Structure formats: structure tokens, C-alpha cells
């Protein structure tokens, strides 16, 4: 017989969890006490805030493809997880969060640090459960891992009352292999493959959009084989970046509000639109009433509720896109679409001239964020991981970073959570200390979770932090400039001395304000073995272009 708290830890070990990101407190103390005995088998990372813990687990999950594990106490510990849960839910990130809860006999009595975390987290979890007795702990954790990881991944939460943690029970771990009410994988309908292949074979201007679904399904190779055989131009969403090498001859760029010119504009010129593992987010589609109306849409998607949700499709192909892409590749004709591809290249040249050239090679005025990313590309390792926060720097870094392989970008896509980057970079780095992890963050966002510098210090994770400081909540300021008559209402920041803060946390740190110092500084950062903090003071009022303004159609993408 072992204590419930030991069962919690032994269950996590049985699931091969490598890290727990957490923060202790009264209602979870028995589990923390148990952890003391298992430090050789599972590592615990003490963050400085529960939000930091869950974002770190997200960063870990996104680069590793494994479940991220979070531990927190009841009440405020649990409520501090809510932002991360919502973020992981919308970005399909597998997490298992374990929260302590007051003893079962106190439930509903407004006991100290009692909060209804099951109720609070319901809309932000794929599944959640409260466990009130010791024998239910292991089965609940087994189910949690199964649900988090299978089908469309997502966050789950297991709330364990304190009495269950201290009761004694048998430990006999049986992994969950199936739940009768839950069918994560649909068998692929061969007729839909046939119908899709016919449309594709007849198409004159077919166009493929790929999203994170490809990464989650480990279908990068299948995607590339499909594109190779069909010769179809392919563009990615924010979270799809890297699933197809950017150097691939058919890769045409990025979709969405601040994506590339050609991929947005030509969405309304294709005749067949093949969407793979993406959900037609409004940041991708712009005005739906004027989105790809001329095209027949084929949607390869695992989640049935995504079919016809935003864009009606002619042929839905439900199921794991690793399988459906392979089947589709079998069924389609070998082809090329060179003149259609040429259209993308022509517009790409226009974007280069109007936007990219100056973004990357500005010669006067303040430093441009793009220059920093260009230099990072020059000195980074091939498979370096980019972690970004939310705002202008996120869009610029995404636009210009060289994504050479899959799972090299971690960012908050669907929720757009400021404060995500710093802890997520820590989690990404812990998965592999030897990988280069570069965290690009704004002066606003870094201050939302800046305390996690302490966790980086304590874990010695060699994260490279690049603070792009424009002294503004830049993205909001850009909107104020373009749509609110330059009324910069509460977006300018009086910032602290970031270098002093970084140094207080034992970081090697450097601040760059001049163009001539930038290259050496980036180079110096990227040869460091340990953590490094580089602050780059950039132009205060730069804007991110191209841009599709809210309510506009993809064809109204503007270059200035």
C-alpha cells in the first residue's frame, strides 16, 4: 500500500513524464512531499508563477511532441493556470495539469483556497475530472494522458482532493488504451480520397494550405511527397511553419493578417483549395464572405467539428492526415504547375521590393526588428528553435526567421497570449539543453512573465533572450496609428533598465542601440554556452506589413 500522493508521482513516471512544471501549496503538499523521494526518476521545475509553469509545459510539449505536465495547488494556484489552459486548448497542445483540492468533506464549504477549478477550467480543457478517493487516482491520470495525446491533442486537468492524496491504496498502473465514448481517429473514407483526387487532377490552379495539424500528425514527409508529386504551390499558417522546408520549390510563403503578399492574394485566384490540418482561423481568412469563393475546397482534417465550421468544403477528408495524405498521393497524377507558381513568384518580388528589402536591410533611421532576425539567421544553428511572444516582434520574427525543420517554432497562435514566450522558451530548452533556443520577445510581453528569468537562472537553461524594445505596446500602437487616428492611448511604456534586471538574474546581458554594433552582438550571443540576454532598442514607430485589416478580404492585403 502506498499513499495517494505517491500514486500520483508513480503514475507520472509510468507515463514516461520527464519533467513536471509546478508550484507548491497547501492542497498539493502531499504530492510535493512524495516528489522528494523520486528526484532520480522525474525532474521537477519550480517556476515563479503557475502561469509560467503551464507555458513552460506548453513549450516543452510543442517541441517534444510529448505531454507537458503541470502541478499546482488549489485556489489561486489553479486559477493561475487558466490562461495557459485556454492557450493550449486553442493551439491543440497536449498537457496534463494536476491540481490539489481541499479535502472532499470540505467541498462546497468555501474552505480556505477552495475554488471550483473543474467548473472554471471546463471550457478551456479537452477533458477534466475531480478525484476524491485514492483508488481513482491512477485510472484518472491514465485516462488524462490518453485523452491529452490522442486525436486532436489538448489540455486536460485532474483535480485531486487532499484526502485522496494522503489515503493509502494499491498502485497498479494500467495505461488507458481506449474510451468507448471517444473515437479519436476516423477511418479514412476511400471515396472521399477518390473525389479529392479527381478535383486535384482536373485543377488548373490548385493551392495547398497547411497548418499545425501536419506537425501534430507527424505528416511532414507525407506532405512533402504530396507536394512533390502534384507540383502544387503550398503556403503555411502561423503554427504550420516548418512542416514543409521553406526552401522547397513549391513553398510560397505564409498566410494571414501579416503573412506574405502572394499567398493571401492568390487565395482568391485558385480553382481548388486543399487545406491540410488547419482550421480557417479568421486571422487567415479575413472576411469569410469574400474568401476563396471561386474555389472548390478540399479539407483534410482530424476533428469533425472543424469541417464546414468556417469554410464550406466540397470534399471533406476526415481522419489522420498522415494516412490521408499518403493515400491522396497514391491517387493523384504526377503534375507540375509552373506558370501558376510563377504568379506567386511575381508577387513575391513585389513584396520583396516594397517591404522585405527595407525590413531586412534598413540603412538609416532606428534599427528594424527584421534586421535583428536576419542576423540571427546568419549566426544561428540550423535546427534552432524560435520562441516568440505576441505582437509586432512575433510577426516580424515569424516572417523572417529561417525555419529549416519542423517543430522549430513555438508561439501562442490562437489565443495570442502575451507573456507566453519566456516560460515557453524555458520549457523548449529543457527538452534538449543542446538545442539552440532563441526567445524573441517585446518590451510589453516580457514584463508579463519576467519573473521566469529566475527559473531560467535556477535551471541554467541556456536560453537566448532577444528583447526587441520599441518602448511601446507596438502592435496596438500600429492599430492606433492606422485605424484610430494616431491616438496613442496608453500604449507607451516607461520601461525599467532591462539589463540591470537580467544581470540581477545572473544573465550575461548586452544592450544594443546602434546599427554598427548589432552584428557583433548577435554573433556573440549565439556562441554562448549559457543563457544570454540581448536587448535591442528598435525604431519606436515601425509597422508590420503586409497587412490584411480586420474585415477586409485576403485580396485587400496591403503592402503599406
Amino acid at each position: 500500500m502506498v499513499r495517494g500522493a505517491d500514486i500520483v508521482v508513480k503514475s507520472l513516471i509510468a507515463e514516461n513524464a520527464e519533467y513536471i512544471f509546478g508550484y507548491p501549496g497547501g492542497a498539493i503538499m502531499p504530492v510535493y512531499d512524495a516528489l522528494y523521494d523520486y528526484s532520480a526518476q522525474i525532474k521537477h521545475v519550480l517556476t515563479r508563477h503557475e502561469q509560467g509553469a503551464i507555458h513552460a509545459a506548453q513549450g516543452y510539449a510543442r517541441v517534444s511532441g510529448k505531454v507537458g505536465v503541470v502541478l499546482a495547488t488549489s485556489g489561486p494556484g489553479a486559477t493561475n493556470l487558466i490562461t495557459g489552459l485556454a492557450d493550449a486548448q486553442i493551439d491543440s497542445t497536449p498537457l496534463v495539469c494536476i491540481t490539489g483540492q481541499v479535502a472532499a468533506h470540505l467541498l462546497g464549504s468555501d474552505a480556505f483556497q477552495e475554488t471550483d477549478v473543474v467548473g472554471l477550467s471546463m471550457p478551456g480543457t479537452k477533458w477534466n475530472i475531480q478525484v476524491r478517493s485514492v483508488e481513482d487516482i491512477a485510472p484518472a491520470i491514465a485516462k488524462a494522458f490518453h485523452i491529452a495525446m490522442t486525436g486532436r491533442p489538448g489540455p486536460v486537468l485532474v483535480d485531486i482532493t487532499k484526502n485522496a492524496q494522503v489515503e493509502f491504496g494499491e498502485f497498479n498502473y494500467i495505461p488507458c488504451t481506449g474510451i468507448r465514448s471517444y473515437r479519436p481517429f476516423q477511418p479514412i473514407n476511400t471515396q472521399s480520397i477518390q473525389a479529392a483526387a479527381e478535383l486535384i487532377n482536373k485543377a488548373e490552379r490548385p493551392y495547398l494550405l497547411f497548418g499545425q495539424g501536419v506537425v501534430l500528425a507527424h505528416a511532414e514527409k507525407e506532405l512533402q511527397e504530396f507536394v512533390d508529386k502534384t507540383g502544387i504551390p503550398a503556403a503555411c499558417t502561423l503554427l504550420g511553419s516548418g512542416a514543409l522546408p521553406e526552401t522547397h520549390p513549391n513553398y510560397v510563403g505564409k498566410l494571414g493578417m501579416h503573412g506574405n503578399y502572394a499567398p493571401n492574394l492568390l487565395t482568391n485566384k485558385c480553382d481548388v483549395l486543399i487545406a491540410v490540418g488547419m482550421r480557417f482561423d479568421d486571422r487567415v481568412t479575413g472576411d469569410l464572405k469574400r474568401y476563396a469563393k471561386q474555389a472548390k475546397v478540399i479539407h483534410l482534417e482530424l476533428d469533425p467539428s472543424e469541417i464546414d465550421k468556417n469554410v464550406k468544403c466540397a470534399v471533406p477528408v476526415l481522419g489522420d492526415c498522415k494516412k490521408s495524405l499518403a493515400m491522396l498521393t497514391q491517387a493523384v497524377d504526377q503534375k507540375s504547375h509552373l506558370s501558376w507558381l510563377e504568379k506567386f513568384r511575381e508577387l513575391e518580388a513585389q513584396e520583396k521590393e516594397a517591404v522585405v528589402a527595407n525590413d531586412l536591410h534598413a540603412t538609416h533611421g532606428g534599427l528594424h526588428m527584421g534586421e535583428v532576425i536576419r542576423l540571427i539567421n546568419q549566426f544561428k544553428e540550423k535546427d534552432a528553435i524560435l520562441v516568440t511572444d505576441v505582437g509586432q516582434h512575433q510577426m516580424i520574427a515569424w516572417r523572417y526567421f529561417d525555419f529549416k525543420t519542423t517543430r522549430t517554432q513555438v508561439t501562442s497562435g490562437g489565443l495570442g497570449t502575451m507573456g507566453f514566450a519566456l516560460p515557453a522558451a524555458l520549457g523548449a530548452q529543457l527538452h534538449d539543453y543542446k538545442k539552440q533556443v532563441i526567445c524573441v520577445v517585446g518590451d510589453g510581453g516580457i514584463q508579463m512573465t519576467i519573473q521566469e528569468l529566475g527559473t531560467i537562472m535556477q535551471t541554467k537553461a541556456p536560453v537566448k533572450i532577444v528583447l526587441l524594445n520599441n518602448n511601446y505596446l507596438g502592435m496596438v500602437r500600429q492599430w492606433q496609428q492606422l485605424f484610430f487616428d494616431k491616438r496613442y492611448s496608453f500604449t507607451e511604456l516607461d520601461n525599467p533598465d532591462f539589463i540591470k534586471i537580467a544581470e540581477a538574474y545572473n544573465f550575461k546581458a548586452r544592450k544594443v542601440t546602434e546599427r554598427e554594433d548589432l552584428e557583433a552582438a548577435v554573433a556573440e550571443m549565439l556562441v554562448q554556452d549559457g543563457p544570454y540576454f540581448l536587448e535591442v532598442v528598435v525604431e519606436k514607430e515601425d509597422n508590420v506589413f503586409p497587412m490584411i485589416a480586420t474585415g477586409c478580404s485576403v485580396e485587400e492585403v496591403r503592402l503599406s
Partner: protein
Amino acid sequence: MNRYTILVYTENFIGILNRITIIFTRRGININALTASESRLDGIHKITIEVTVTPEQIEHLVKQIEKVVDVIKAYYFTDNEVVYQEIALYKIPIESLDPSVEKVIRQFNAHIIAAEKEFVVLEFTGHKEDTQALLEILKPFNLLEFSRSGRVAIAKPKFSVQEYLNNQT
């Protein structure tokens, strides 16, 4: 907008009703009526939801409901695809029970299911339009209380949750 009946078969799991209703709340959709009970199959619950929405919305809602891990299967039907009833109870003071009221009771084929010193309770089962019609008639007779259930429904098209469960993939 059409009136639909959604039949949801679920595991008997704490919080499942909440998980289903927040799907409607989040989209600002009002549930007309909801009933929940055990189904014919042991351990499986059946939730019947009546809702007035567009054809696109009902598709969307049912897919979202099916996405809930503990939901086994959800189906939706238009009114003419289901046999459905709602039960209504009416509390009438004894002194209102004059011949004209008794005539109405007979006409509607309603039943007195409880008779106390000061009031009787009338039961009438039918569609909302019918129970509502009786309500309107009884209101002027000092009707003391009225209570109506959500709909219970049986679908006409053939489907089998049992078969679905047997067909594990």
C-alpha cells in the same frame, strides 16, 4: 430558424451536463428545454435538448457536442422526425371548477391527478402548443400554478447506440 430536437447519449459522468450546456452558452444560443434521464442502455444517459436555430447552427452544435469526450453519440432531428411530448401540470382552486371548466378538461382529455380540499391538480400531456392553449383557457379561472416539462422524444429514423458501441474501430 427551425425547431430541433437533439438527442445526446453520454456516459454517466459528473459535469457532463455542464460541458454540454456551455456549448450553447458560449454561442449565445438559448436552450428552449432540456431533459436528462437514464436511457434504455445500462449506464448510458440520454439528454434531450430542444433548440431553435438555423440549419448551419444545428450542424455545428451537434459536432461540438460529439466532440465532448464523454459523449457517445449525438443526433438531431426536426419536429416531424420525432415523436415527442411534454407534460404539463395545472393547479386550479376548487371554487373555479364550474361546469365550463369541467367541459374544457374533457375536451382536452386532461386528467385530475390530485384533489385536495382547496385545489385540484390537472395533468395534460401533449405538444407545447396544446399545453399552452389549455394554459391560456385556464388563466382566467384563477389558475394558481403551472409547470411544464421539457420535451421527451423518440426519433422515427432508425439508429442504434448499442450497434454504434459494438462497432468499435
